[in-house]
């Protein structure tokens, strides 16, 4: 009576040991890689932020909180943070709203449906460097496409008042198709019964959208909102490629990651760059936390 379970237990544990052995074997490459490529770098970046850096990380001088004091008391970091939020304030809501409308239209039985879908998704497979180059040319004040088509003379990317909007427009253009695809797959999960019920109740078009589509799609919308906010706060390619170093509007457009890149890799002041990116980490984690906490208020789960 007492021996039997013991034997069984031993057998189980042998089998479990075997399974655990395979489990470890399979996760070792990934975990090892994550430690070398991600977790050690997080610690190293934080460590670096307390040092004034010589070339190639040599000749580090411990400066305590000096980097933090100069990052947080200077106007450059805060200015770039404001620019980044301004960028996000346009990119996120517009790219989501437009994508939502397009997705709702393409979720109907409509001619050329897949053709439209292919076109809207096209920017997603283009290199941002190339996209930025052509937009920069179209924005050119003298011979750019936009001013010549509309007969205007707007300094799209060199007027500090509007340059950040122009950059954000490229951001919306680039990401709208991606959001749309995510919304489309969310829409396809809404059962048709809901729409039929709405039809019987006489709710059509716009009312149906607000009564049925929006609440049932809210988990997807929240997800896209969250990833887009985080993504927009890391914007780099567009300001880097579109804004020349000599552009007078640069200070009102440069993003946090842009400033980080300049310090870490152009001026080779890695300690200062590390400090900027640690500050950014704190902000992004705080936003993630707030979004997670407020999720229940936004999202409707059946």
């Amino acid at each position, binding site marked *: 009576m007492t021996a039997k379970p013991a034997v069984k237990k031993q057998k189980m544990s042998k089998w479990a040991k075997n399974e655990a052995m395979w489990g470890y074997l399979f996760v070792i490459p990934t975990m090892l890689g994550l430690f*070398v490529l*991600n977790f050690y770098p997080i610690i190293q*970046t934080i460590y670096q932020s307390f040092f004034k850096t010589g070339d*190639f990380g040599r000749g580090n001088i411990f400066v305590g909180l000096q980097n933090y004091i100069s990052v947080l008391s200077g106007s450059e970091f805060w200015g770039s943070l404001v620019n980044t939020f301004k960028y996000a304030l346009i990119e996120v809501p517009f790219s989501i709203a437009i994508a939502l*409308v397009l997705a709702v239209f393409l979720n109907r039985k409509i001619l050329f449906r897949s053709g439209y879908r292919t076109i809207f998704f096209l920017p997603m497979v283009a290199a941002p460097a*190339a996209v930025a180059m052509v937009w920069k040319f179209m924005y050119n004040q003298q011979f750019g496409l936009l001013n010549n088509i509309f007969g205007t003379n707007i300094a799209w990317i060199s007027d500090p008042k509007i340059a950040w909007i122009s950059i954000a427009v490229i951001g919306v253009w680039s990401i709208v198709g991606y959001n749309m695809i995510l919304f489309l797959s*969310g829409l396809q999960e809404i059962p048709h019964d809901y729409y039929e019920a709405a039809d019987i109740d006489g709710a059509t078009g716009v009312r149906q959208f607000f009564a049925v589509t929006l609440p049932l799609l809210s988990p997807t919308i929240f997800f896209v909102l969250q990833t887009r906010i985080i993504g927009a706060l890391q914007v780099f390619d567009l300001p880097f490629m579109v804004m020349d170093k000599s552009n007078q509007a640069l200070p009102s457009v440069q993003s946090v990651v842009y400033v980080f890149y300049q310090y870490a890799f152009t001026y080779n002041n890695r300690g200062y760059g590390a400090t900027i*990116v640690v500050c950014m980490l704190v902000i992004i*984690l705080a936003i993630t936390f707030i979004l997670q906490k407020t999720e229940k208020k936004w999202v409707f789960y059946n």
Partner: protein
Amino acid sequence: MDSFILRQRITQGVIHLILIVASITMIVPFAWMFLTAFKTLSESTAINPFVIFPSSWKFDNFLTVWKSYNFLYLYRNTLLMIFFRVVCAVLTATMAGYAFGRLNFPGKNLLFSLILVQMMVPSQIFIIPQYMMVANMKALNTMFALVFPGLVTAFGTLLLKQAYQSLPKDMEEAANIDGCNIGQRFLLIMAPLTRSAMVSLGIFTAVFAFKDLMWPMIVCSNATSTTLSAGLAKMQGQYASNYPELMAAALMACLPMIVIYLIYQKQFIEGIATSGGKL
């Protein structure tokens, strides 16, 4: 009833109108890239009259760009970087995803929570130390440097874990009775069943490796060792005002990916939708 049909028609018409305007907005930058790439420098900067179509369709700009910007190297580097990154990501994520999704071992939850932590952290925080590692290995301007941050993928591991979890349990038990060990079970039975998740991850990895700008700029600054994206940034820095040549370069950089996308658009869109939906 007639008024109902009429209203339907009008709604359809308005929807098409909006979709067409949106389509034009999406296409114009590509069209402008294409048209400018064939123009002469003076055509591209003419304003009175403004030139929309090039007077002749010559490939001069493409040839100039091809020769003077080492495009052959850029294509080769980008292709190899994508290849290695996709292989590494799919291989490591499939293994780890299977272990997290199907096997039990002590510390599993702790290790998996590390995967989730990595996904919450903005990737810029890794870049300085990653760069310094590559520099210390004397591996700047090599293929290894381009592939390095993509050797493993936390996101792909999550994606594959979910794919394995969605597979029915009895399948594996049948194999267990047949006397397969866990390795054989994984390789012969389970892994082939997650092919669509692997394809999604592969496409996702390829597209984002192709689009990445900062990392190749940092570790591969030589014109012959860098990628298409970083190569474009370099060209713009050097020849900022020769727009026809820059547009030819941009078009050449984008065209292969666009053509592959147009051929495999179903897989592309599904792959990005399923993997992007979990990011």
